[in-house]
């Protein structure tokens, strides 16, 4: 069984259809890159998979391990193992990062019928992961993402990914706002989480990110559909020729 199956998905926002029948199949261990110009529907796809309100699904389905994902609340999807790394992680003043991480992790474990982590076990785990991502301890005491740089916010997303151990990670424009050094740190963090059990969907506008996170498959989106799929070389091809050739195809 595939891990994530998006079948002929049609999505509207208010009166406008954004996705016009999108199909994507992701198996465990695979890394898929979704590329496309602005407005092609990449972020809409990531939001609908995570369950963000405000999108109306008018056709098709999304299955996660064969279950209908669209019927689940966002927190149920998270507990089942769906993780969205946000393009713009929000700042939550007054909620310490550590408190947030513990509340989230325990909420997911509780939903799965697992025991909650004890405080010492939890702290040990967070410290290990934080260290590997170069996240200083004082960042964990601050409000979630409050006063974090762009790179720190993205590292905080990857920290959560490492902590929650999801089955499928959707990385929405992880490279936006990052300089080359910050990008490398973030990409190293993601690569460390690649495993035969885990799949990743990397959404990006630019080929650059894919030099660091090398995908197994590349899909080109245009005007709400996947218009071309191929191996990692497709990204290089795009880099040379641009998206214009696909505008007409869509």
């Amino acid at each position, binding site marked *: 069984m595939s891990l994530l199956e998006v079948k002929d998905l049609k999505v509207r926002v208010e009166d406008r259809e954004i996705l016009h029948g999108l199909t994507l199949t992701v198996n465990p261990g695979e890394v898929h890159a979704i590329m496309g110009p602005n407005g092609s529907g990449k972020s809409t796809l990531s939001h609908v998979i*995570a369950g963000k309100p405000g999108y109306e699904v008018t056709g098709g389905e999304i299955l996660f391990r064969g279950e209908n994902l669209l019927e689940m609340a966002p927190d149920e999807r998270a507990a089942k193992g769906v993780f969205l790394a946000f393009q713009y992680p929000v700042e939550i003043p*007054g909620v310490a990062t550590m408190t*947030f991480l513990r509340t989230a992790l325990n*909420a*997911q474990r509780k939903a799965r019928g697992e025991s909650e982590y004890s405080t010492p076990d939890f702290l040990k785990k967070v410290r290990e992961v934080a260290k590997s991502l170069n996240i200083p301890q004082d960042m964990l005491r601050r409000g979630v993402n409050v006063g974090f740089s762009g790179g720190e916010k993205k590292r905080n997303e990857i920290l959560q990914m490492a902590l929650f151990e999801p089955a499928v990670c959707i990385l929405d424009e992880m490279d936006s706002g990052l300089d080359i050094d910050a990008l490398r740190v973030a990409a190293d963090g993601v690569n460390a989480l690649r495993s035969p059990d885990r799949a990743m969907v990397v959404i990006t506008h630019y080929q650059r990110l894919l030099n660091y996170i090398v995908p197994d498959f590349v899909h080109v989106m245009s005007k709400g559909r996947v218009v071309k799929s191929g191996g990692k070389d497709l990204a290089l091809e795009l880099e040379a020729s641009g998206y214009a050739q696909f505008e007409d195809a869509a």
Partner: protein
Amino acid sequence: MNLALAKNETGRALSDSFAVARDRLPGTGKVAEARSAAFEAYDRVGLPHRRIEDWKYTDLRALMRDVLPLAPAPDAAALARAAAAVKLQAIKGVRRLVLVDGVFAPKLSELDGLEKGLTIRTLREVLEAGDAALQAQLFTPDVANPMVALNSAMMTDGVVIEIANGLVLTQPLHVVHIASGTAPAAMFTRSLLRLGKDAGATLVESYIAADGATAYQAHDSLIVTVGDNSRLDQIRLIEDISEAFNISSAVITLGAHAHFNTFGMTSGAAVSRYQATIAFAGEGSRVETNGVNLLNGRQHADTTLFMDHAVPHCASREVFRAVADDRAHSVFQGRIVVRPNAQKTDAKMMTRALLLSDEAEADNKPELEIFADDVTCGHGATTGALDESLLFYLRARGLSEKEAQALLIQAFVGEAIESIVNDDLREFAIAAAQRWLEARG
């Protein structure tokens, strides 16, 4: 309009009840005269209503309808129920002073081993046998406010605490107001705290009910004087049952170079009003007031503060956070007066309201009256709902809707709660907020 004519029938009933209660009210001579004068002051107006500007949002005539008869003194069974309630609300490391149904309960209180310079008496003792100056001080609050006047007329008991010059109390004093009555009744309490010069104290006041308590009215007032170079920390928690009324007043007067840090949180009572006057009487003093309302159902909670900058070089900070769910109604009225010679006053007030339902209401009424020209004064107010993008982020990380809301509500009120300096007391306030959040389900 003629207020005397507007007085309703319930006013008459209360006149009778004052006459009946008189024998049970401590004090004779001047005290009794002061009571009668206060009752007449109340009786001229009766329960305040919306046509009185200060009570515009809290029309007690509509909300409370009448003043209940004076609660009987607690019997053994009532004291036993109160003792159980006290146990549940115990705070680590405090000296507890307990009032049950408006009467001081020595057996539930801790009066042993008082520090040298700390005196604690009951209001009853002082009204019956105290010195005239102290008795007069107990009647200082402004009887132009009808609910203060009523309290002056009917006060039965309370605690009178005196802290000598130079004594810094490390152990907080916790005054617990417990209602235990199984029949509807009213309690009238008044307490006084005199903090000398170069002294320090922490006063905690909590309002709770024993198991089985029925609809009641808690009428309380507090008089505080803070001496020069002294610091007072105050924490008030209203956790009355959902049928209860809580009408409390306070008058706090600060000497020179004094520091007053106060935190109040209302999560209980059907209707509550806390009205406080904070007066600067000496230069170089500082006040921080932090308030939180956590309301649901049809709760109505009013906090009305009057910051009186009467002298130069004083600073005040007011932070208020209201959370209202369902059809709850939160009211904050903040009046700041800077008198003509109070130059270099630095006064700021910031209120924020969080509405969790379309039918919840929050009224903010800031009033700045500035008569000096070299001052820094400001106020700001915001009202809004929980941020949808924050809620989605939390839900995408596995928190249920209620859990996500709870975390954001905690963060919203957190800034005010963080103002509590004492760790145990801060934890106690956080626990009270948690109880409210958990009761939401």
